């Protein structure tokens, strides 16, 4: 479930305009994802680590988050070097790892971590509610923003509902195993969850109608772009250009 662990920690980035932070994190993600040379990727990773340093977040919590994603990266390391065509580097039993395969895996690992770190530092420090408002103010279509906010709002209700159903199965002695009975029970649980979600969606919509909803969403939060935002925007833009130059000129 969404716990927003980085919101409660005090970060100086929280005082920056969230629109700027979203924009910069996105731009950084694009530059990093499109870069291919290690001479650009490694400085990118360093830059994201510097951002984490500025963000004032607890390093332990950030590492915990990274572990999660690097689980997938590890899986890539197990598969890609052995399957990617190229010059053989070393043998592992019947399998041969290639130089190109190792390089591709390294690139993916660096990109993944750099992008994740920059988003943790810049974006994850804001509550989803603020991010939604910021996206709306950036000109993202209202319907997409509200889809995000509504999913965020009702994912908790769905979790509670699932737990209620699972508990009611558990108190009647249900223990998951590999059997038709287990599969059927889970199918019922999930089916019931869908039925309830759709019934709830209908009630939420009716409640919205009762309060005069006519298909248009309005955003309340206002943001202002301060001098401090300007300074940060300047620094980050220069850094991004630097990375671009390293990639395309280097």
């Amino acid at each position: 479930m969404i716990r927003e662990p980085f919101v409660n920690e005090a970060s100086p980035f929280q005082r920056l305009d969230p629109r700027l932070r979203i924009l910069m994190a996105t731009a950084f993600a694009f530059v990093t994802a499109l870069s291919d040379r290690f001479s650009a990727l490694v400085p990118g990773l360093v830059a994201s680590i510097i951002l984490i340093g500025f963000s004032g977040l607890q390093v332990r919590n950030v590492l915990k988050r990274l572990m999660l994603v690097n689980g997938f990266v590890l899986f890539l390391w197990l598969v890609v070097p052995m399957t990617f065509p190229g010059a053989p580097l070393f043998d592992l039993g019947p399998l041969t790892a290639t130089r190109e395969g190792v390089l591709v895996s390294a690139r993916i690992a660096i990109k993944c971590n750099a992008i994740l770190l920059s988003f943790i530092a810049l974006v994850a420090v804001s509550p989803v509610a603020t991010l939604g408002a910021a996206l709306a103010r950036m000109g993202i279509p209202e319907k997409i923003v509200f889809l995000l906010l509504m999913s965020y709002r009702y994912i908790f209700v769905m979790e509670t509902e699932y737990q209620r159903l699972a508990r009611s199965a558990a108190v009647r002695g249900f223990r998951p195993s590999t059997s038709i009975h287990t599969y059927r029970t889970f199918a019922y649980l999930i089916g019931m969850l869908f039925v309830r979600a759709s019934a709830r969606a209908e009630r939420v919509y009716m409640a919205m109608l009762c309060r005069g909803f006519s298909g248009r969403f309005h955003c309340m939060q206002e943001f202002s772009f301060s001098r401090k935002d300007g300074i940060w925007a300047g620094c980050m833009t220069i850094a991004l250009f630097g990375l671009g130059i390293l990639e395309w000129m280097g």
Partner: protein
Amino acid sequence: MDGLTSIIELEHICFGYDAGPPVLDDLSFLLGEGEKAGLIGYNGSGKTTLLHVIMGLLTPSRGTIRVLGKKIETKKDFLEVRRTIGLVFQNADDQLFSPTVLEDVAFGPLNLGKSPKEARTMAMETLERLNLEGFENRITHRLSGGEKKLVSLATVLVMQPKALLLDEPTTGLDEDARTRITSLLNDLDISMVIVSHEYDFLAGTVQRVYSMKDGRIQFDGEAEILHVHVHRHPVIEHRHGREGEQGKSHSR
């Protein structure tokens, strides 16, 4: 009701879900200005359905609805009704969909065409009136059950309705929250219909109690008298109160 202006007037309303038996069968009801009415009935007797029909969420197959004396027919008429009458849903999670309390309370005023600034002021005033200062930035899904109920009341009251429909406002609330809701409803100087299973709660909030049976509404008596009555004859309490909760269990 003589001499009183009527807020809601229902005549010969019929309604049924799909091919099922009629839920509302030739139902007539009148809510006067300033009147506070309680509505009791079995599960599945059509209480919630009735509230939804009044709001125009469900369309009756027969009968007329008048709000403030005006016959309500078109979709546009119902948009007007929703400004006049506020409905507080039974489940606060259905009502509160915005991430923060302030945004949820401001949702109604924004729909009525207020500017974000006006909507914010109105929301803050309403929260203050309900003793919910400091709640504006709370995350709605993290509120307690009682807090959720109070905030959903705020989301409706901010639209300054002339009448309030409350669907089982005390279900699942503890004594504290119940007391708070009771005193709050007593302080409100507008008409209301309260659907509830709890005689005690109704006795503390409404003047008249109606019950729903066989798709119709019947007048049961003044709340005060019924309340005393119930306490003097526990057997009758059994018939009137408990059956409603346990008798029929098919719900709608």
